[in-house]
């Protein structure tokens, strides 16, 4: 508009790009120089996600086995429900865990709210459907007659489950990696029950969220690049596993 004080749009975009490129340059410098704060957040995020994935695997791979190997009415409905829960909103899970851990909640006396343990609890709940559902799919995808063959050769129920799990190991590993991927990249649970406390519960996603709000673009971009790398590594690992299985 004639007489306006705001700079032309092209100039505005150019300034933003310059700003972003500068931030990216600083971010790369932080990553390459081994910036302590950036790497501490990364390490904490990966540790929390790994703990969540490990706990969820220990709890929910057996649950997937139980559903797969047990004959009961409504089995298909249970499988369908588990798959529906893949996309449960992270803030919904965060809210549930918050209500459980808050002072007036059923687990309030444990004093876990705003701690890494609370984030782990939330992430376990968040990725439980993914790990259970994909384990179920993995077991269903094994060759028909595998469990029966095992039984006819004299295997106990437990040994048969181990054999089928071993045959489905690549698909089960994929389920675990998918769970880790969801845990490492979620933000709702970490913010709601972790509280984004610096040096204690701050994770990659919550730090990015906070940094952007405070205008700390360079640090946010550095953390974003690292988060992207972690997510891509998981994705590549899943692809490699699936290619190996096909081959």
């Amino acid at each position, binding site marked *: 508009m004639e007489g306006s004080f705001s700079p032309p749009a092209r100039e505005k975009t150019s300034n933003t790009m310059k700003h972003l490129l500068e931030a990216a340059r600083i971010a790369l410098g932080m990553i390459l120089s081994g910036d302590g704060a950036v790497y501490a957040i990364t390490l904490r995020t990966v540790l929390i996600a790994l703990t969540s994935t490990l706990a969820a695997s220990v709890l929910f791979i057996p649950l997937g086995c139980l559903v797969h190997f047990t004959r009961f009415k409504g089995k298909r409905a249970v499988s369908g429900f588990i798959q529906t829960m893949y996309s449960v909103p992270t803030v919904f899970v965060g809210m549930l865990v918050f209500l459980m851990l808050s002072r007036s909640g059923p687990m309030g006396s444990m004093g876990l709210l705003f701690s890494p343990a609370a984030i782990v609890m939330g992430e376990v709940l968040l990725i439980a459907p993914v790990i259970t559902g994909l384990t179920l799919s993995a077991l269903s995808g094994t060759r028909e*007659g595998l469990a029966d063959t095992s039984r006819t*050769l*004299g295997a106990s129920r437990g040994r048969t489950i181990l054999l089928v799990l071993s045959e489905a190991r690549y698909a089960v590993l994929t389920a675990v990696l998918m769970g880790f991927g969801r845990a490492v990249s979620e933000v709702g649970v970490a913010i709601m029950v972790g509280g984004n406390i610096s040096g204690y519960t701050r994770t990659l996603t919550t730090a990015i969220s906070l940094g952007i709000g405070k205008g700390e673009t360079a640090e946010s971009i550095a953390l974003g690049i690292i988060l992207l790398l972690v997510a891509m590594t998981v994705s590549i690992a899943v692809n490699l596993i699936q290619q190996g299985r096909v081959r």
Partner: protein
Amino acid sequence: MILKLESVTRSKGGNRILNGISLNVHKGDFFVLMGPTGCGKTTTLRIAGLLDPPDSGSVLFRGISTRQPERKLLPVRRKMAMVFQSPVMFSGTVYFNIAWGLRIRGIPEEVIRHRVDAITELAGLQGLLERNTESLSGGEQKRVALARAMILEPELLILDEPTTSLHLSFKKELLEKIRELHRETGTTILMATHDFQDALFLGTSGAVMNNGTIEQSGSMESILFNPQSNFMADFTGAGNVIPVHFHGDTAVSGDLRVKHTGNRNGAGCIAIPPEVIVLSTTPGVTSERNRFTGTVTDMNRQGRTWSVTVDVSGTLLDSAVTQGALDELEIRKGSTVYLSFKANAVRVF
């Protein structure tokens, strides 16, 4: 008696698959369960192999009921082994597959290696032990599955259609291996097949199933030579099944009067195997009690022999004739021929 099924029934998806099956398998038997595809053979084997429970009826293994909790059933199941129609190989080598059943029983590795070597030789799998099972042919996989089951030295080995989908040469080889394994080890075998020729080659006794029921059981000879129903006559390839009315030792169908060695009256059926009917172009002198004159109506090659159809007093009879005999007789469609067969070759039911 090693296995006894009593009045076993089983339904699936609202359909009755088995209608009160009863079977007796004796120690050392090669018992063949025969019947067309879909008659319930596999369902029967799965119940016999304790993979599925019957809806009603009982399964006794060495006289002991198998209606027990899964935990208590394991020692019983470990006395059996089963090979499926399409065997499933475990990921890994042939050695891993064959040794698997012994490993889960906690047998020491050196004993396992010794037994694997022995069974490998018997099953003709030398040189394949280190091969990955994914690279095996269908026939090799079936032999590995057989060795994997046989190495457990089961008291009862259950085989479900072991030669299905195999090339003829592999099929013959596998049948010979199975017969050799049975003879060398004396293991009781319960095998299902829809191929009557396979059953005759291997079986010592058996049963024929039809629509979820046992049509006839007994020794292979009695099944082959004494079919007791139209279905049995058809299944065993008795040929020339004719509905008749019996008058003592004579079976009458229209103007055809056939002598047999029985003595019965009323309605029934006879079967005259095509291979017992002798054709000639001259009346000749013969001691056979059944002699007829007829006209050749059709001639079809069936493998190494010819099936010559002759119209005898309005009844069509098939006769199996070799190529050499056909050349010698010089018969063709419309030729007048003389047929003769013994009374004791006529099957009555």
